């Protein structure tokens, strides 16, 4: 992974590694993230279920929603929104940019940083 100068983007994967229908597990600054492709766009969400911390990338990706492998909580992979329990909290989403074959991700800062 190369650190982009001081704009916090980190390269996390090659575009070709993100296969349609499967979430790719990667890390951003030590935090598990999951990358998915929906209608040609790449999305990045936290890979930790907000219920009991299962790895969502081991779950089931269907029609833009990911189902947690353990207790079947569902999240929208584009917005991180929690759609079905037993999880109650939404997932953090990350910004994604593609440059050539490289996928870059960064945390979204809330206070305009």
């Amino acid at each position, binding site marked *: 992974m190369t650190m982009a100068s001081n704009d916090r983007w980190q390269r996390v994967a090659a575009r070709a590694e993100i296969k349609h229908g499967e979430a790719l597990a990667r890390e951003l600054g030590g935090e598990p993230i999951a990358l998915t492709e929906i209608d040609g766009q790449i999305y990045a969400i936290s890979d930790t279920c907000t219920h009991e911390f*299962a790895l969502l990338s*081991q*779950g*089931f990706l269907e029609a833009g929603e990911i189902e947690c*492998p*353990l*207790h*079947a909580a569902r999240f929208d992979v584009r917005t991180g929104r929690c759609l079905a329990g037993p999880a109650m909290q939404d997932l953090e989403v990350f910004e994604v940019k593609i440059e050539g074959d490289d996928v870059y991700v960064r945390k979204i800062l809330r206070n305009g940083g």
Partner: protein
Amino acid sequence: MFLKNHWYVAAIDNEVSRTPMRRIICNEPVAIYRTEDGAPVALEDRCAHRHLPLSMGKLKGDILECLYHGLCFDRTGACIKVPGQETIPPSARVRAYPMVERYHWLWIWMGDPALADPAQITDFHWLDDPAWGAATRYLHAKANWQLIVDNLLDLTHLAFVHTTTIGNSALVNAKVKVERSPNDVTVTRWTIDAPAPPTFVKAGGFTSNVDRWQIIHFTPPSFMRLDVGATPTGTGAPEGRRVGGIGMRNLNAMTPETETTTHYFYGQAHDFDVKNSQTTEMVMNQITKAFLEDQIIFEAQQKNMLQVPNAPQVDINADNGVLQARRILDRLFQEEQAGVRRTVAAE
């Protein structure tokens, strides 16, 4: 809770003879014997008159005579004679369970006989196929059948329970993929470039690292068919190229006896040295050794679960396949309770 509208394994072929045997299946007592021309019969093992097990009685030709008052039942469960009287009460009959002999196992249908279709019997052909060497054994487990399904769906336990046979620490970090459809679950595990466990060294003579696969296929209610094996590492097994090495099938059919005990039928088939009975015996003994280790585990779990009923439990990532199977079973229980007739597609 038991799923009734399914074929279950009731016995191994060599257990069934002209001497009736008794087995409790899904809490129902069953008497099993062979007719004079060798056909297997399964009747309710409880005389319609005063409840004595019919398996304590005498087979006269194809007729089973109760030991107590001599009532005679034919293979359809009808009473055909009541000693000391001419008439036979119309209610004097016992249930007859559909039974089919296939793959060296006797299969019994525990539900509505009108729904019993032998085409739905799960495929265990490796037990009876000249392309494979195979053997089968029976284990009585004092544990609920679902604990054994769980045990076979999460094979990370091999690294802790079976280090003298089929397990080693490399298995803990296997690459795992779980696939599911409405009526089955497949867990595929690959352990790349790691030492072979003792059983595989004995079976395959491996002297250096291997690529090892474990493909676990669950079909309800309790059929676990595992495709397992290994090849020397780097020869392309994960890409679908099989170069030497060993391939086996570990075949499991758990039949509920009661809510806390299970008839565990298992078989091991091998695709190497298929005609060598010593190889067959060796792999079967290795698997049996491992399964006796599992028996200690699930019997201790069951005892503790009875000691502390309904205690909560925590799931870990490796429980993915286990939980997908439990969800399928829960749905099937609900459907059966609701009286929905559904046929689970046979393999």
